């Protein structure tokens, strides 16, 4: 096929496979890749599972204790306000004197 210089120039630049060659990865890179399992496993096994579970359980207990005490405090406050109201109304005539 006869192409004019412009078409030829464009065609040469579009056929990337003719000027981009495949490159072999370096040995150093392969070494780095082969080290991934030991690297990943050492990162994950730094904290033993027992400790992770113990910390999780302590946090859960802490939250429960806080919720219970908050609940008890709330009911105690309610009880206290209602007893105050009774005494106030009972002795209210005294205040009028």
């Amino acid at each position, binding site marked *: 096929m006869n192409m004019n210089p*412009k078409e030829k120039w464009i065609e040469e630049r579009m056929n990337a496979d003719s000027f981009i060659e495949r490159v072999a990865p370096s040995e150093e890179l392969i070494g780095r890749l082969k080290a991934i399992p030991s690297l990943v496993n050492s990162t994950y096994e730094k904290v033993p599972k027992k400790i992770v579970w113990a910390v999780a359980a302590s946090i859960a207990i802490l939250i429960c204790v806080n919720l219970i005490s908050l609940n008890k405090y709330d009911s105690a406050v309610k009880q206290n306000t209602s007893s105050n109201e009774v005494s106030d109304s009972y002795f209210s005539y005294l205040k009028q004197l």
Partner: protein
Amino acid sequence: MQLDDQSFITLAHENKDRAFSMLVDAYTGLVFNACLNTVRNREDAEDVVQEVFTVAYLSLDKFEGKSKLSTWLYSIALNKSKEFLRSKTRKKRFGIFTVLEKEDSHLVPEGTINYEHPGIQLENKERAAIFFEAIDKLAENQRTAYTLHKIDGMSYSEVAELMGTSVSSVESLMFRAKKRLKEFLSAYYEKNEL
């Protein structure tokens, strides 16, 4: 030793580390070149390849063989390379603002990513620079399809599988990509009076 995908899955469940070592031996070249053709710099490509294989190692148990092993690795490589380029562009933009705040220096033109592609001979550097400039003007899916087919040498069906689309869509993407590339190169030719 080359394993077929099914034997690889069995091996991955029995001995993950050995399976991973075989994966590295068989596919480093493929993944490295895929990353290199996207990020266009050896050091950056090596960093991305390391990320790709780390993700592959962590999700080796989840690979069920629904796609080919090479396609699976290729798609991770493609995503990680795009992620890398996005973060690099972000940093570059941020860098421009920092420079502007400090002094009124001239702007760095957008999209100029320095490339040190080791697969390009010195005599082809100019040709490659124009090609990369042109390909960077394409829409992302057109660029992906063109790179996979023209540079990585994949067939249309492989590109379709990798991009999660049909062969006819890939054909259409390639048609539009070629048309736009021709338009850009033609304008470049006219502008520079070559």
